[in-house]
């Protein structure tokens, strides 16, 4: 049986990697991929806790909703990226600086 802490450490590593991607990436779609990593890390936490601490499937239900929400968010975010791409012909975050600071 794999202890709870191992799963938590994996999700913490995933969260940190997602954070790293967020801070360094210039391409908007790359940033979105990093954000998906963060959502997945939260989900792993939820499922692990559901098994070890909750004793019931509540955490899994929450994780299921998170998956659905993340799908919606990705769809809308990509639609926005598309819309912006039509204007700028590029999705580099460096180009999106008409709004200052």
């Amino acid at each position, binding site marked *: *049986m*794999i202890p709870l*802490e*191992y*799963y938590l*450490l*994996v999700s*913490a*590593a*995933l969260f*940190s*990697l*997602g*954070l*790293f*991607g967020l*801070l*360094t990436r*210039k*391409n908007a*779609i*790359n940033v*979105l*991929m*990093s954000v*998906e*990593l963060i959502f*997945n890390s939260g*989900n*792993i936490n939820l*499922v692990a806790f559901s*098994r*070890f*601490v*909750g*004793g*019931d*499937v*509540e955490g*899994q*239900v929450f*994780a*299921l*909703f998170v*998956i*659905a*929400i*993340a*799908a*919606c968010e*990705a*769809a809308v975010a*990509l*639609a926005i*990226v*598309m819309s912006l*791409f039509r204007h700028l012909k*590029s*999705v*580099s975050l460096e180009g999106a600086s008409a709004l200052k600071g």
Partner: protein
Amino acid sequence: METLAPKIIFWFFTALMLGSALIVVHGRNLVHSGFALLATFFSAAVFYALLGADFLAGAQVLIYVGGILILLLFGVMLTNRIFDVNLKTETFQVVPSALVSAGVFAMLTLVILKTPWRQVSLLEEGPTTAKIGNLLVTTYLLPFEVASVLLLVALLGAAMLVRRRSDL
């Protein structure tokens, strides 16, 4: 031998997940990042299965890999000139960000290891689908309905943002 198999699976997929996540956040080529994300999502599904969440593992593969990942790849294809041999992506401020992320990871590790998580034994092993379904129509009925409104609005919004005729 019985306890060895889960351990092997766990460590293998941990390595796969973290390795592919590294490619996602730092890889040079955008399409490579996209496919590495596939490996990450799939490893997460394996973790869910290891934790006994069979329905969730299936849902993860179906929705994340089959939906979100495909969408992201479409996004990549449609917003870049993929016929360029190298789909290079640039990064900025790598070293400070790496320090920040490492710091966050260290802090989280400390907290995770020091907290005495109150663990209970699982009430019963077995398939979770019926239990999840039960919860969805009793306790969690309202979120279930609200989620349907959310899905409608996301669909509407995404379609509106992407269609060509703006006066329609």
